[in-house]
């Protein structure tokens, strides 16, 4: 077919409904998108599915907390203090007679929220900075990379402590601190990915098509860096929850009577010999959630790695 004039082009190409309908039958081969492929890989991975079940369990626990628990999480009952697990109190009670199961369930809400918001914050800012540094290079990269270096050189807990010290001790500020700690982790990951993608021929081809920088960045480079970002996010979820627990334990995060797991550990540590269940429940909860996210993260990494595909 010959093309005559640029202006006539759209006229020539009016849709022909009859033709299109007929062609649909030819479309037998199902196009496997990279995402569908990843999903299949992930479902085959037993560790990842186990991790997902654990996380799902805690999500449901958090969501259904008001319906499955018999007590308000802050209600004290000094008569019933430090009771071992029983039919009334499935996981026992703490030193103020609060039901531990109730507090774990409400605590799941907090921990998952902390993980989500801290990771989202770190992800958004880290990715943005990383993309800018990697794509534009030169002095912009210099400045951003040095900021990352400084942030990474700081012990993360110390950094969090200083942030909390400036902003005051609360769960929200702990969350901000955790997000800041995690920015350079995402930033460096994205930056290195962008630098290698920048040299890809399809990026050069996109430029040769006259595409603008913004479009190349967000439509070609970013979608191709999404795999490591997803993996890091799931792994970061676990780390963020741990860090929130650590800050809570140090008294720099959630304040009483918030049923934050780290805080629960800290409050119960005096009773470790007298009533070990007060520590075991939040401890195991933290461990399970972090483990769950790590299992999903590892599974995702394998599923998204083109070299592992068969």
């Amino acid at each position, binding site marked *: *077919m*010959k*093309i005559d004039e*640029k202006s006539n*082009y*759209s006229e020539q*190409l*009016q*849709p022909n409904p009859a033709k*299109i309908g007929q*062609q*649909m039958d*030819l*479309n*037998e*081969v199902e*196009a*496997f*998108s*990279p995402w569908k492929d990843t999903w299949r890989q992930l479902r085959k991975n037993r560790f990842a599915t186990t991790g997902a079940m654990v996380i799902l369990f805690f999500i449901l626990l958090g969501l259904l907390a008001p319906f499955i628990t018999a007590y308000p999480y802050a209600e004290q009952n000094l008569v019933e203090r430090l009771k071992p697990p029983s039919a009334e109190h499935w996981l026992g009670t703490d030193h103020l007679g609060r039901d531990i199961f109730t507090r774990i369930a409400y605590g799941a809400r907090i921990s998952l929220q902390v993980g989500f918001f801290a990771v989202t914050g770190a992800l958004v800012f880290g990715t943005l900075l990383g993309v800018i540094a990697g794509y534009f290079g*030169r002095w912009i990269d210099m400045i951003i990379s040095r900021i990352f270096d400084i942030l990474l050189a700081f012990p993360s807990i110390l950094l969090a402590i200083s942030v909390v010290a400036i902003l005051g001790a609360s769960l929200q500020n702990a969350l901000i601190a955790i997000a800041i700690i995690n920015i350079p982790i995402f930033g460096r990951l994205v930056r290195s990915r962008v630098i290698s993608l920048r040299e*890809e*021929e*399809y990026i*050069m*081809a*996109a*430029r*040769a*098509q*006259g*595409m*603008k920088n913004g479009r190349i960045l967000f*439509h*070609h480079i970013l*979608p*191709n860096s999404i795999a490591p970002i997803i993996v890091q996010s799931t792994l970061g979820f676990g780390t963020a929850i741990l860090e929130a627990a650590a800050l809570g334990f140090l008294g720099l995060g959630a304040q009483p009577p918030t049923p934050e797991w780290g805080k629960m550990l800290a409050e119960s540590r005096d009773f470790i010999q007298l009533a070990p269940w007060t520590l075991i429940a939040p401890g195991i909860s933290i461990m399970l959630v972090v483990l769950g996210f790590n299992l999903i993260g590892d599974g995702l990494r394998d599923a998204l790695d083109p070299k592992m595909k068969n």
Partner: protein
Amino acid sequence: MPDMVLRLKDLQTHFFTDHGEVPAVDRVSFSVGKGEVVGIVGESGCGKSVTSLSIMQLVPSPPGKIIGGEIQFKGEDLVQASPKRMKQLRGNEIAMIFQEPMTSLNPLFTIGNQLQEAIRIHRKVTKKQARIQAIDLLNQVGIPRAEAIIDEYPHQLSGGMRQRVMIAMAMSCHPDLLIADEPTTALDVTIQAQILRLMKQLNEENNTAILLITHDLGVVAELCDRVVVMYAGQVVERGTMREILKQPKHPYTKGLIRSLPKLSEREQKLYSIPGTVPRLGVGQVGCRFAPRCEMAFTRCFQENPALYELENGQTARCFLYDEIEREGHPDGGKTSIGSKGT
């Protein structure tokens, strides 16, 4: 000639590396007429790809920089053009296809998605219209089942098919100039022939000028009207395809042609030009090819030869065609052509 699409004049693209300045493109001049197919031939590292990237203003910078010369595209100097103007031209009036069809497409998006995007960058059309245009383009470049292929991902296509998609993408806005950087190198021979035929067809039907960059003289013979031979960043010979292949003038071009395998001759060993492409640096004295040249004489190591214009319009960068040398030198004497320095 009035109907020039592209005209390079003394283009200099240098790379500023830690090991010094490298003149990757050293005062290169040539032109491409409307609807003409011009080939740039040379070994790896001779500056042909950098030349094409210079035209697109896509030389990686740093370390690369165009430090002199002009690139006239339809009368407009691209070296002076603003980045905004270049974005309008790229893909619209000048298109480019690359060597590796396997990596030239974004693996995450369907063929249709990428084709539509290419169309919609420069044309104000709806997604639906773009899709219809895309299907039509795929049909034009000879892709079977275009309506199905359009929803497939790059990894589902063969190399030849992907190169056809790349060509479709490049032709989407009917450019006046198509730069093809080794478009067939990564493909096997039967597919190569198909792709070359397709390019020839598009060239004839749409009157698109093609600048073909290759190291393969067979590809040149198939497609090109005129040929520019490059060596170590310089143009060493220019002429029509017939002249270059039948009567090469520069010893380097002669060597290139001698090193082509011939089916008719049962030679034991294939000829190869001794030595390798020299390392480039500024301020080199003498002809760049002299160390590998069988005909080299003292002057070749002392001065850099100019491009000598021969009577039939062919030019060669070699002292053999200098008047002074013609008197005394045996080979120069035989070729009784008038020459003048440029």
